C-alpha cells in the first residue's frame, strides 16, 4: 500500500533499515497530511519492539506542596506561602496518601518552597522508603535536584547519591519543558535550562538512577524547537543511557493566559508518532492520559505509544489548569482502555520491570541459524519477553557497553572488553576452520605486500584486529593506516585494500571490486598460520540477568540450532524465508539453498577446546596491542 504522501516513502526505507532519522525527516513527518501513514509507521516500530503489549502502572501521584520559589508562566499550580491556597503536607500525610492497595510506584513532583533544604527532600524519600520498602519512588525533577544542590552547596552528583541512598528509584521526566533558550527566557527564565537538565539526567544515569524525559508542547514553541529537543534527548541517551520513557505533554492552557486552546488531537498523535520514530534509543513512548484525555491516549496506542501511565491516585498540577480527564482511573478502566485499542495490558512497576531481555542480533546470513524461529520479531516464551534489537557487530558492542542490550553474539574483542559485566552463554559462538567466507580483504596486490591505507568497514569490531594481527605478526607489515568507511559504496579507491564483513563482503565477492583483484579470506589466513580454527563472535549474556532467564535463552538458541538440519533442503527453504526477512540485503542468496547450505556448513556454532585455544592466543595479542 503506497503512502498517500510520497514524502513518507524514503523515511520508511530509513526506518526499515535502522537508519536514524534527522531533523529534516521530523519536519517532513510533521508537515505530512498522511496522518495515518505516519501513525502506521510508528505503530510498526512499536509492535516490532513490544508486540501488542501496552503498559500501565498502579501509581500514586504525590504533590507535597504547591509553594514554589519559581513563577513559570505556564503553571497554574504553584503559589506563594502567603496566598490562601498555599498548602504543605506533613510527612505523615504523604505516607498516608500512598497507602493505596497495590500501589507500586510513587511519583512525587511539586513546588520548591524557599525554606526547604536538602534534608527536607531526603526526609520525604526516607520516610516513604521505610513505609514502602518495595515500591518504586520516582521523585524530584531535575529542577528540584539542581535547586537542592544549590541550596545545600553540594554537587549534583552528591545530591543524587544521597537521594539514592535514601531510597530514590528513578527521576521523573518533568521540568524539561522545551529545550530552547528562547522559550526559557520567555516563560521560565528562573528555571534551569537544557544543559543543566540534561546534565542532571546523564549524571543520574551514570549513578544507576534511571529516568524519564518529557516535552511540553502546544504553547509558544515552534515545531523546530521540538525536533531540536528530541535530537538532544537522543544524543543524551547515546552518551549516558538510562531514559526509560519519553512523554510528550500536551500543554493545558487553563488560566495561564498563554494559549486559548490545547493542542489539537492531530498534533498530539503526531508528537507520539514522531517521537517513536525519532527516538530509536528510547524503549518506551508514553501516551499520558492525564494530559491527553482517555480517548486520545487510547488512540495513541495506534500511533506508536506503548504505555498510558497509571491509575494516578490523585493529580493536581494538570487539573489546576483545567484538564478534564477523570482524576484517577481504576485498574479495570485502564485495562479496558488498552484492550479497546487492540492491545494486551501489562502491569509494570516503576522501572518497567516485567521480565524482558533485550537481545542484540546481527542481520548477517551467518547469524540466521541462531534465529531460526527465534527473532527478529519479539517473542514471548516461558513468561519472558524477548526484544530483538538489530545491530552491526560494532554497534552491538557499544549497545552492550551502554546497558541497552542484555545478550547477543558479541564480537570476540567486545567479549574480552566487557568480561566484567558479561559472561559466555554456554559454548555458543561462531567459529570457522578455514574460509570465513564473509570476512574478506580486497586488495590491489597480495596481502603480504600491503602498505599505505587500508579501508575498513565500520561494522567490524573483531575482524580489524584480526587483520592487524595477521599483517603485523605474520607478514611484518607495519605503518599501515586503517580508515573506517561508512559502507563499501563510499569507498573511493584511495586505499590499497578494503576489509569488508558480513553481507557486504558476500555482495562484493559476488560482484567484485574493480582494481582489487586479490581477495583474501581471513579465516583461511588464520588456519594456515595458526593451524587452529578462528572465532569471530561469542554469545554473551549480562551477568546480572536472572539465572532462569539465562537458561531459557540458552534453551531457545539451542532449539533454533537443533532444528537447522544443514543437509535437509526442505528445512533450509523454511529457514531461508526467515533469512530473507532478517537479511539486510534481501535477495542476496535468494532461491539458492545449496549455496546457503554450503555457507552455513562452514561455521561451527558450538565452540570446542580448539576454538578456546585460538581465543586465548588472540586475546593475548589484542590485550598487548590496545
Amino acid at each position, binding site marked *: 500500500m503506497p503512502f*498517500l504522501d510520497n514524502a513518507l516513502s524514503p523515511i520508511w526505507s530509513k526506518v526499515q533499515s535502522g537508519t536514524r532519522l534527522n531533523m529534516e525527516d521530523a519536519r517532513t513527518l510533521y508537515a505530512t*497530511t498522511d*496522518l495515518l501513514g505516519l501513525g502506521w509507521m510508528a505503530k510498526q516500530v512499536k509492535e516490532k519492539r513490544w508486540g501488542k503489549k501496552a503498559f500501565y502502572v498502579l501509581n500514586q501521584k504525590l504533590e507535597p506542596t504547591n509553594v514554589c520559589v519559581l513563577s513559570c508562566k505556564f503553571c497554574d499550580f504553584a503559589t506563594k506561602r502567603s496566598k490562601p491556597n498555599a498548602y504543605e503536607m506533613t510527612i505523615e500525610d504523604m505516607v498516608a496518601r500512598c497507602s493505596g492497595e497495590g500501589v507500586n510506584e510513587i511519583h512525587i513532583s511539586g513546588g520548591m518552597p524557599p525554606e526547604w533544604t536538602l534534608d527536607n527532600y531526603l526526609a520525604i524519600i526516607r520516610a516513604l522508603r521505610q513505609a514502602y520498602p518495595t515500591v518504586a519512588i520516582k521523585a524530584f525533577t531535575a529542577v528540584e535536584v539542581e535547586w537542592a544542590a544549590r541550596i545545600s552547596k553540594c554537587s549534583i552528583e552528591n545530591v543524587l547519591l544521597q537521594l539514592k541512598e535514601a531510597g530514590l528509584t528513578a527521576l521523573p521526566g518533568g521540568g524539561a519543558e522545551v529545550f530552547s533558550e528562547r522559550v526559557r527566557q520567555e516563560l521560565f527564565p528562573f528555571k534551569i535550562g537544557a544543559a543543566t537538565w540534561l546534565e542532571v539526567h546523564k549524571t543520574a544515569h551514570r549513578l544507576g538512577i534511571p529516568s524519564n524525559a518529557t516535552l511540553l*508542547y502546544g*504553547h509558544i514553541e515552534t515545531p523546530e524547537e521540538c525536533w531540536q529537543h528530541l535530537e538532544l534527548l537522543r544524543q543524551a541517551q547515546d552518551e549516558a543511557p538510562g531514559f526509560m520513557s519519553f512523554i510528550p505533554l500536551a500543554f493545558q492552557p487553563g488560566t495561564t493566559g498563554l494559549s486559548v486552546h490545547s493542542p489539537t488531537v492531530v498534533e498530539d498523535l503526531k508528537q507520539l508518532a514522531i517521537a517513536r520514530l525519532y527516538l530509536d534509543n528510547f524503549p518506551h513512548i508514553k501516551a499520558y492520559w492525564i494530559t491527553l484525555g482517555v480517548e486520545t491516549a487510547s488512540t495513541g496506542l495506534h500511533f506508536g505509544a506503548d504505555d498510558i501511565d497509571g491509575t494516578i491516585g490523585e493529580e493536581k498540577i494538570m487539573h489546576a489548569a483545567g484538564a478534564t480527564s477523570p482524576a484517577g482511573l481504576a485498574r479495570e478502566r485502564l485495562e479496558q482502555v488498552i484492550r479497546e485499542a487492540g492491545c494486551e495490558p501489562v502491569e509494570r512497576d516503576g522501572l518497567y520491570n516485567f521480565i524482558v531481555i533485550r537481545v542484540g542480533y546481527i542481520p548477517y546470513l551467518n547469524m540466521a541459524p541462531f534465529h531460526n524461529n527465534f527473532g527478529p520479531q519479539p517473542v514471548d516464551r516461558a513468561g519472558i519477553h524477548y526484544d530483538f534489537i538489530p545491530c552491526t557487530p560494532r554497534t552491538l558492542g557499544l549497545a552492550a557497553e551502554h546497558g541497552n542490550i542484555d545478550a547477543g553474539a558479541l564480537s570476540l574483542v567486545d567479549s574480552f572488553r566487557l568480561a566484567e559485566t558479561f559472561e559466555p552463554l554456554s559454548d555458543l559462538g561462531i567459529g570457522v576452520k578455514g574460509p570465513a567466507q564473509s570476512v574478506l580483504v580486497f586488495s590491489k596486490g597480495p596481502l603480504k605486500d600491503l602498505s599505505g591505507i587500508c579501508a575498513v568497514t565500520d561494522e567490524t569490531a573483531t575482524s580489524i584486529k584480526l587483520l592487524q594481527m595477521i599483517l603485523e605478526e605474520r607478514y611484518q607489515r607495519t605503518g599501515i593506516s586503517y580508515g573506517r568507511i561508512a559502507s563499501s559504496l563510499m569507498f573511493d579507491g584511495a586505499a590499497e585494500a578494503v576489509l569488508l564483513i558480513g553481507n557486504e563482503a558476500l555482495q562484493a565477492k559476488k560482484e567484485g571490486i574493480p582494481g582489487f583483484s586479490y581477495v583474501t579470506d581471513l579465516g583461511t589466513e588464520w588456519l594456515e598460520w595458526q593451524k587452529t580454527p578462528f572465532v569471530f563472535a561469542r554469545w554473551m549474556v549480562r551477568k546480572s540477568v536472572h539465572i532462569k532467564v539465562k537458561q531459557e535463552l540458552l534453551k531457545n538458541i539451542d532449539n533454533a540450532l537443533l532444528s537447522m538440519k544443514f543437509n535437509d533442503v526442505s528445512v533450509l527453504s523454511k529457514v531461508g524465508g526467515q533469512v530473507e526477512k532478517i537479511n539486510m540485503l534481501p535477495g542476496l542468496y535468494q532461491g539458492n539453498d545449496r549455496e546457503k547450505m554450503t555457507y552455513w556448513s562452514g561455521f561451527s556454532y558450538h565452540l570446542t577446546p580448539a576454538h578456546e585455544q585460538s581465543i586465548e592466543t588472540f586475546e593475548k595479542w589484542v590485550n598487548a596491542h590496545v
Partner: protein
Amino acid sequence: MFDRIEKKVLSGERLDSAEGLYLLTEADLMALGRLAQWKRHQMHPGNRVTYIIDSNPNYTNVCVADCLFCAFYRRPGDKEAYTLNIEQVMQKIERAVNQGATTVLLQGGLNPELPLDFYTALIRETRKRFPQVTPHFFTASEVLMMMEVSKKSMAEVLAALKEAGQVSLPGGGAEVLSEYVRKRISPKKNPDDGWAKVHREAHKQGFHSTATMMYGHVDRPQDWVEHFNLVRDMQDEAKDKPGRFTAFIPWSFKPGNSALEKKVPVGKGPSTYLRMLAASRLYLDNIPHIQGSWFSEGKKVGTLSLHFGVDDFGGTLIDENVHKATGHINTTTLDLTLQMIREAGFIPAQRTTLYDIIRVHAPEEHLWGQTPTCQSSSPNLDVLVSDPKVVL
C-alpha cells in the same frame, strides 16, 4: 487476509462477509484506516470534507416503544411528557433558520395520539414558511406509527408525506439490523424488518434517505456484518429507483440514564468507532458518503475520524435532545465545526441535505500551537460555488 482485501479494494472488487468480519474485528486499525482513506480519496478527490448547518428538534418525547437504550422518551401520561403544537415547532425551526440552517431533522417519540395530518401539516408549514430548509423529518419508526394511527398502507403514508413536500428521510431507528439484536433491545420498534421496508418503499417513491447504525450494546461483530449486508443489498436494489441511500452514519451507544446502563455500563471507545467508519467505507462500496461525527464520539475522535475514510462531518446540530438526555453533552458552533475540519487538514465545504455543495471555505493556515481564527462568517474568505453539482 488483509493482503487479499487490499488487492480486492484496489481493484474495485466487492468484499464478502468473511472479509467484512475480519475488518471489523482483527484487521490492524492503521492499515485498515489507510486503505479506507485511499478509497475515500478515490471516491471523493480533493481534500474537502462537507458539513451541513442543521438542527435536530423534537416535537414530542412521548413514546410507546420502550427501547432499552433510550434515556429521552417518557411514557404517555408521565409528568415530564410533552408534545409541541405546530406553532411551537415552527418557532424552533425559525430559530435554526436564523442561524443559517438548511436542513431540519425533526423527530419525536412514537406518540399514538398524533394523527397523520399533524405530520403533513408540519411539512407543509415548514415548506411554506422556510423554503430554504429541507425537511429531513421522521424516521422509519414514526412512519410505522403513522400507518398504525391512520390505518393507511405504508405506500399511502409515504405518498402523503411526499405530497406535503418531504424529499428525504433520516435513517434513525435502525440500531443494529439483525434479528439477534432487535429481539433484545427494541422489540416493539421495527417489528419484523420495518426499517428496511419503509426505506425500500421510500426509495421507490423518490425519497433519498440515510442509513444509520447504533452499535455497542448487545450487538456482536457478526450483527454488524449482517447490518452492512442489508444496507448494501438495499442500495443495489435502489439502483433503478428514483431514491437511494446518500450516506452511512454509525455511532456508538451511550449507556447513561438508559435501562441498558446496568447491563452495558461503558460504551465502545474510539478504536471501535474509527474501525467501524473505515470498514464501512470499504464494505459499503455503493454508498457515496460516510459520515463521521464529533457529536457522538467527542471532538477529538470526531476530528480524527476524518482520516478514517470519512468525507462528511454531519451537522452543526443546533438543537439536540436525545443524546443530551443520556448525559452526553456535546454542542458546537459553526466555527468549531470548521475548526475541527481544518485541524484534521481538510477544506470545509457546506452542503445541503442531498449533498449539493453550497460553498467551499478558503483553506487556512494553521500554525503550530496557535489558535486558528475561524472566518466562516466573513464572505470574502469563502468561495461561493456558483454551479453546485449533486455529489450523489
